[in-house]
């Protein structure tokens, strides 16, 4: 069951990820990214992390992607294929760099997954790990200081976004 769902979600994630990169219209790119993010939420559920899955859907699909779509529509981008295409040499260099990166990652994964004595299998679900209670307890005791720093980071981000987007500061 786990395998079938994994491959189903993997297919959805990769297909919509590629579509996101290749599609000319940024609105469609954003929609494809939302599909990818939902597939990722599926992976998190499969990996016994329901809290992360829920937060992922709420934060990414609910907040970040709405912000993206809002800005895309606010900017009213004129669709111009010639501007999007860019120079051919630049594009070729990009393709070469991507291929080099894929080869590098492949070599790394091959080396890492070779026999090194570490078990490769994900153990069966232990329902306690990943529950909201366990994460909350850890977040508010061991990781209390990073949690507070994260809240300050969000505050700074909020103030910065308002200052940057404001037309004129008096």
């Amino acid at each position, binding site marked *: 069951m786990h395998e079938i769902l994994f491959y189903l979600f993997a297919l959805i994630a990769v297909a919509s990820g590629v579509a996101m990169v290749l599609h000319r219209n940024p609105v469609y790119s*954003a929609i494809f990214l939302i599909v990818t993010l939902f597939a990722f939420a599926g992976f998190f559920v499969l990996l016994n992390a329901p809290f*992360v899955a829920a937060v992922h859907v709420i934060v990414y699909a609910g907040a970040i992607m709405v912000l993206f779509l809002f800005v895309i529509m606010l900017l009213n981008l004129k669709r111009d294929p010639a501007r999007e295409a*860019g120079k051919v040499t630049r594009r070729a260099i*990009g393709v070469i760099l991507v291929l080099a990166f894929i080869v590098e990652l492949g070599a790394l994964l091959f080396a890492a997954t070779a026999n090194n004595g570490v078990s490769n299998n994900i153990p069966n679900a232990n329902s306690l790990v990943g529950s909201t209670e366990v994460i909350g307890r850890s977040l508010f005791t061991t990781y209390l200081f990073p949690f507070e720093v994260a809240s300050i980071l969000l505050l700074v981000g909020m103030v910065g976004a308002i200052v940057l987007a404001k037309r004129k500061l008096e």
Partner: protein
Amino acid sequence: MPLSHYLILSAIMFAIGVAGVLLRRNAIVIFMSVELMLNAVNLTFVAFAAQLNNIEGQIFVFFVMVVAAAEVAIGLALMVAIFRVRETVFVDELNLMKW
């Protein structure tokens, strides 16, 4: 379920994100590709957390999400500010600091 499958999938998604950053010219789509890369890394964290039966990986994903949210807010505000001045978000045309 082998852990390596999750790692390979996450590598593929990261590579797709890198391709988006390198091949696209629209700054908003580049931002979306960065989000995809962050998510690929999150998947690695959660997969390792599940394999090691450990909570720290999921805590880290939580903080990655916080940083991603702040980054998107600032990045899109910058995009709006740039668009007001230059009337474009295509990175080829933003060449003021190029020499």
